[in-house]
């Protein structure tokens, strides 16, 4: 263990206590509601795959069709599980797939069961979803075996590289090449439109914009391709995707089933940057985090994004506040500290005096505040101007800060950020930069101890103090009003606006979500 800042324990305890107070009303709100995507995720865990060949252009998944028809016929307030498994238990349908076919044919007549029928439907639903969670558990055990066989990367931070061609069959050789070149984690970023699609596309896809669609088949193909190189490289290469947007719970379920290893999953990102309704987001993220917890997936939170719109010095404390809230929401959903890749970024204007010392102070604050979390360290983007030579230097300093402050996951910065999507040579030069810094200075954290009362120590305490002040205010006003007022990342997002609000439903007494019951150990 290397040198760390020693934070004022009273201030740290107060920060956590306030985060818990601020999060609780939102957690209560999340447990009182369900969403179309949570209900679809229940069906996905029970094994319903494929699309309705007739509706639209044949791209609408069965899970969407079934949830929509349940909603039309009996409402969603009891959940999709009771009416669907009532149809199966009563013999009206022979299987889940048969329910879907009947929905497609327009012959499904769904009802919310009562009494003994309800009990039978409940037992059948729990068994079906339980089998799906069994597949998630098996994937987790498989990962543990593969890590035991091939080993983890030999050092921290893990090197995280992005692949994004739009075509899964182009992504695969690029991802394999990136792994051979030294990447420990491969992220396949999504097509930019996907976060606002209210369904998960199906099959292997070749036509994304600035990214590749997240689909179950794409997940499976990429994981298999990386498994092939793990043996060759003698280390387990992790795969990342994005549980964000309107289908967060479903993507989380698919990630668990297909053994993805990390998922982007932020409590507030969709609200602030995608204008997704706050309630929809909090309901969806709670479910998705429970799935991640169960699947042994490491989540990555999105605090780096705040600093792309807000000033990295003035607003540093909003990153800390968001990390504390993300930690609280994650722990409540059952995630353990080793699964919390809390985000932060190197985004201070390099033209300001002491910018690197300020970066170190912020990075060390996060390290000290979350000593057991891996922390995801994001490279400069805002001040990458197209001056690729200056950018290469800045990325070197970013890498140095990462090594010096024991970051767990380091996203590799590209000198051509904001110029082009990375070329082969950009990625190669960026990895050379990382390797040089980690080889040259990877152990420097052992010698590096900022003195108490010095610049770094004082700055870290200032930011923590500002974070506590802001948390006091959020706790007093409520988290939803704070988001509505533009507290994070400047964007204002009221709770009664935003995309996906029509997919939020208040649960009735007796609502059954077999997935949540099983994951919370209630059934």
């Amino acid at each position, binding site marked *: 263990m290397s040198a760390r800042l020693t934070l004022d324990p009273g201030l740290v305890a107060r920060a956590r206590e306030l985060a818990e107070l601020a999060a609780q009303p939102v957690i209560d709100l999340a447990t009182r509601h369900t969403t179309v995507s949570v209900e679809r995720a229940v069906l996905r865990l029970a094994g319903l795959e494929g699309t309705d060949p007739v509706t639209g252009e044949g791209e609408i998944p069965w899970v969407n069709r079934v949830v929509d028809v349940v909603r039309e016929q009996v409402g969603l307030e009891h959940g999709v599980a009771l009416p669907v498994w009532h149809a199966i238990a009563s013999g009206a349908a022979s299987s889940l797939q048969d329910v879907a076919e009947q929905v497609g044919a327009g012959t499904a007549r769904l009802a919310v069961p009562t009494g003994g029928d309800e009990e039978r439907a409940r037992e059948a639903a729990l068994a079906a979803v339980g089998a799906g969670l069994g597949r998630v558990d098996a994937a987790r055990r498989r990962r543990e075996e593969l890590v035991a066989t091939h080993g983890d990367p030999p050092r921290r931070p893990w090197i995280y590289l992005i692949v994004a061609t739009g075509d899964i069959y182009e992504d695969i050789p690029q991802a394999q090449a990136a792994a*051979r070149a030294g990447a420990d984690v491969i992220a396949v970023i999504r097509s930019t439109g996907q976060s606002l699609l209210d369904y998960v596309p199906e099959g292997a896809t070749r036509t994304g*914009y*600035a990214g590749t669609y997240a689909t179950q088949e794409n997940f499976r193909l990429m994981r298999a391709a990386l498994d092939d190189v793990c043996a060759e490289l003698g280390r387990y290469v992790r795969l990342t995707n994005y549980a964000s947007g309107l289908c967060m719970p479903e993507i989380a379920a698919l990630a668990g089933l297909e053994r993805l290893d990390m998922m982007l999953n932020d409590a507030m990102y969709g609200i602030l*940057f995608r*204008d997704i309704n706050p309630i929809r987001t909090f309901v969806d993220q709670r479910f998705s985090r429970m799935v991640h917890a169960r699947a042994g997936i490491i989540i990555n939170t999105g605090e780096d994004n705040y600093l792309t*719109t807000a000033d990295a010095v003035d607003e540093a404390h909003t990153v800390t506040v968001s990390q504390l809230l993300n930690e609280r929401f994650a722990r409540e959903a059952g995630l353990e500290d080793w699964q919390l890749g809390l985000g932060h970024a190197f985004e201070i204007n390099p033209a300001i005096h002491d910018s690197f010392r300020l970066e170190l102070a912020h990075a060390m604050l996060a390290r000290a505040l979350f000593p057991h979390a891996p922390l995801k360290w994001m490279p400069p983007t805002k001040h990458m101007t*197209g001056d690729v030579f200056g950018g290469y230097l800045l990325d070197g300093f970013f890498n140095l800060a990462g090594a010096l402050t024991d970051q767990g996951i380091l996203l590799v910065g590209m000198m051509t950020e904001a110029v082009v999507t990375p070329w082969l*040579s950009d990625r190669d030069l960026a990895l050379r930069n990382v390797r040089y810094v980690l080889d040259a200075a990877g152990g420097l954290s052992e010698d590096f101890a900022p003195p108490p009362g010095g610049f770094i120590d004082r700055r870290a305490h200032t930011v923590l103090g500002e974070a506590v002040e802001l948390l006091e205010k959020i706790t007093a006003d409520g988290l939803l009003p704070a988001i509505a007022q533009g507290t994070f990342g*400047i*964007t204002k997002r009221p709770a009664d606006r935003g995309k996906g609000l029509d997919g939020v439903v208040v649960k009735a007494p007796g609502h059954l979500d077999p997935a949540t019951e099983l994951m919370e150990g209630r059934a």
Partner: protein
Amino acid sequence: MTVIRPYGDTTGDGMVQTSFTLPVPPGPRAEGAALQLAGKMGIHPAMVVHSHGIGEGFTFFVVYGSVTHLVDTDEVEVEERDYPLLSPAEVNGAIKARLHRKLVVMGACIGTDAHTVGIDAILNLKGFAGEKGLEYYREMDVANLGAQVTVPELVTRARAARADAVLVSQVVTQKDAHLRNTRELAGAFREAMGEDRPLLVVGGPRFDPAMARDLGVDKVFGRGTTPGEVASYLVSALLPEEIAA
């Protein structure tokens, strides 16, 4: 002298530096291939000062050399700024004196583009390059609709708010999405509002400012545009002094 050459350390030496990757494994043949390319680019004599293999079957080169080409500065065409740069106080003063109400500005990222960096830099109070964003201008009523706004939604909102100007930023350029989206934007406003449409301004790092007419918008801003330039342009385009109310 209007004819010039690149400058390394001596006038007229023509020295340039470039780097590129060829899909060949490293070795003497690869270096020869790089020199051949450099020669065809007009670099002569060229030196491959560095090369290394990338993965299997690729080599990266750094090349220095003297270009044989000449540049005639008299033949250079640039889009000069054709409006005066105003301070925030001057912008506010002009709106107050000539419009007698707030200037309504609406901004968004359209299509699937989720990169709000550009529009935020121009609109957010925080601003960009040391200049405050348009939200800071007292006489402007600014609404930033954020990312992934559909074109029909933007038209509806702009019409409801009686926007004087609509600002759209586009970062994602894959498959020319920025150009396609901008044409769609211009077409939708033209169809919905005809001559009464608001001033349409687009911006992004990969736009060519000379393309405004071709894209059907009033103004295109490229990389490095500051909020002050946008504010000054809005005043000059919407409230020209000579026809002030």
